[in-house]
């Protein structure tokens, strides 16, 4: 019963995500402000746009997988049950293939990883540019890299299934394409570094989290090519190495994106700044904590520490790794405790934070042209007209060191 409710809620979630994706895509295509060409969109919007496309194409497949699973559990079909038991009860189900479930699930599951990480990539690109006071390095390359990641993200679901007994020839193809994703990811990483290079960096809390995101993304991503090779994956797949890789690159990195976005847009939402010393404390504890949790996991995994087991104290070689586990646990508790600083800061700043001006970060995008917090229809009845790209910082000859997207050009541009 519980599992059925869970499947039904996932199915409803699929429909909801699908409708959300429709809305995002249509809005991005149809409702951009005058002058906001696709190549003038902030990278945050680009990332959300590609995320919505991934959601549109992936959630439909998860929906049908969920329906089949529900049928298997309640109507006695056997799509996924080879022989034997459902929910611990012996049944007459036979002839199904768990591999089919894996294919259907991971066809959704891998794009879903990018659904989680792409928005963080987009908004961190934006933040790095804002707080380095420099245009983003290679805007077009960033856009095409996002599109390439989205495109390749659909072709690599099989790298979750090297252990499942699928055809080794497919595994080979999946392996090649998975390593191919390294290319657009590296383009993005080098562009992030290029944006930071010789910038007038302001280390405000959103920027710290954005840099933290880049750091985690690089460190988590480096272990990707190892896991992308079936030969290595067969050894590493059931170990903590996978957990370390996944959580650094997708788990914590996305969460850093969420924190960065919260610190960045909080003034616009509530009209008050968040407390900066508290935010910095939160950042350093979380950043060091994340590495303290997940770096030892690489070692633990390579030494053969298995995942998916609640305890391994009876096994000799795992027993010797026990101090690592203890260290990881302590680091995890400390990191969780640090999150209460964030929660406190969030609610305290809503009431007592310093009043925010309209454009506290001196950013150029449209949301900073309106009042803080925004009036009822965001722009108070005036729809903005866009004249510039989103990352016009340190513009030579401009009166300020940045040019808003809505600033009309004073001189003819090249």
């Amino acid at each position, binding site marked *: 019963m519980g599992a059925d409710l869970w499947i039904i809620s996932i199915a409803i979630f699929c429909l909801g995500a699908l409708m959300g994706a429709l809305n995002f895509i249509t809005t991005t295509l149809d409702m951009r402000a005058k002058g906001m060409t696709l190549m003038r969109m902030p990278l945050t919007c680009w990332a959300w746009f590609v995320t919505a496309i991934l959601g549109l194409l992936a959630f439909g497949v998860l929906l049908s997988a969920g329906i089949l699973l529900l049928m298997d559990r309640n109507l006695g079909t056997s799509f996924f049950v080879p022989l034997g038991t459902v929910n611990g009860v012996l049944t007459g189900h036979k002839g199904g293939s768990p591999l*089919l479930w894996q294919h259907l699930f991971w066809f959704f599951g891998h794009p879903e990883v990018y659904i989680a990480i792409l928005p963080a990539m987009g908004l961190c690109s934006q933040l790095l540019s804002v707080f380095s006071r420099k245009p983003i390095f290679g805007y077009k390359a960033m856009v095409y890299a996002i599109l390439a990641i989205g495109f390749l993200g*659909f072709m690599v679901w099989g790298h979750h299934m090297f252990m499942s007994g699928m055809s080794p020839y497919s595994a080979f193809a999946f392996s090649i394409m998975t390593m191919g994703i390294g290319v657009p990811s590296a383009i993005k990483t080098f562009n992030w570094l290029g944006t930071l290079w010789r910038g007038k960096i302001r280390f405000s809390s959103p920027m710290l989290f954005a840099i933290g995101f880049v750091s985690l993304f690089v460190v988590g991503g480096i272990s990707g090519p190892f896991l992308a090779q079936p030969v290595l994956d067969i050894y590493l797949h059931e170990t903590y190495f996978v957990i370390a890789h996944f959580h650094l690159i997708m788990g914590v990195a996305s969460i850093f994106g969420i924190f960065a976005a919260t610190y960045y847009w909080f003034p616009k939402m509530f009209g008050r700044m968040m407390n900066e010393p508290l935010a910095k404390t939160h950042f350093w504890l979380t950043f060091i904590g994340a590495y303290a949790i997940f770096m030892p996991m690489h070692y633990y995994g390579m030494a053969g520490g298995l995942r998916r087991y609640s305890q391994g104290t009876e096994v000799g070689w795992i027993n010797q790794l026990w101090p690592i586990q203890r260290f990881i646990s302590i680091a995890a508790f400390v990191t969780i405790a640090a999150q209460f600083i964030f929660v406190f800061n969030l609610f305290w700043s809503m009431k007592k934070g310093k009043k925010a001006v309209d454009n506290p970060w001196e950013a150029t995008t449209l949301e900073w042209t309106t009042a803080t917090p925004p009036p009822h229809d965001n722009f108070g009845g005036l729809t903005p007209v866009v004249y510039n790209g989103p990352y016009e910082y340190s513009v030579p000859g401009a009166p300020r060191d940045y040019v808003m997207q809505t600033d009309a050009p004073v001189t003819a541009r090249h």
Partner: protein
Amino acid sequence: MDATQIAIAERVAEEQRHHKKAQFLWVWVALLVITGIEVYLTYQNMEPIKMLTILMGLSLIKAALIIGFFMHLRYEISRMKWITMSAVVGCLILMTIFFFPDAHRIITLGVK
């Protein structure tokens, strides 16, 4: 109404000029005839693979007729045609390439 909306309205009106009764009837008859051919072929005792290929080919023709004429994709701008169709067809091709080798392995090697 501003220029953009006028432009879209003109395009939609241009599309709607293609609502010709004779054409719809023609497509409908073609669809019915193809269905008839499919049912006829079913009773011709063919090799299953050959029959599957023919039936799927005919179904694709039917699908193209429905999408092109009834759903008016034929009269949309080429960007819309290509983006919508290539996304769906691409995903389906991917599934085809990677799903069925495993299904074959199950029956030939006995792995589940």
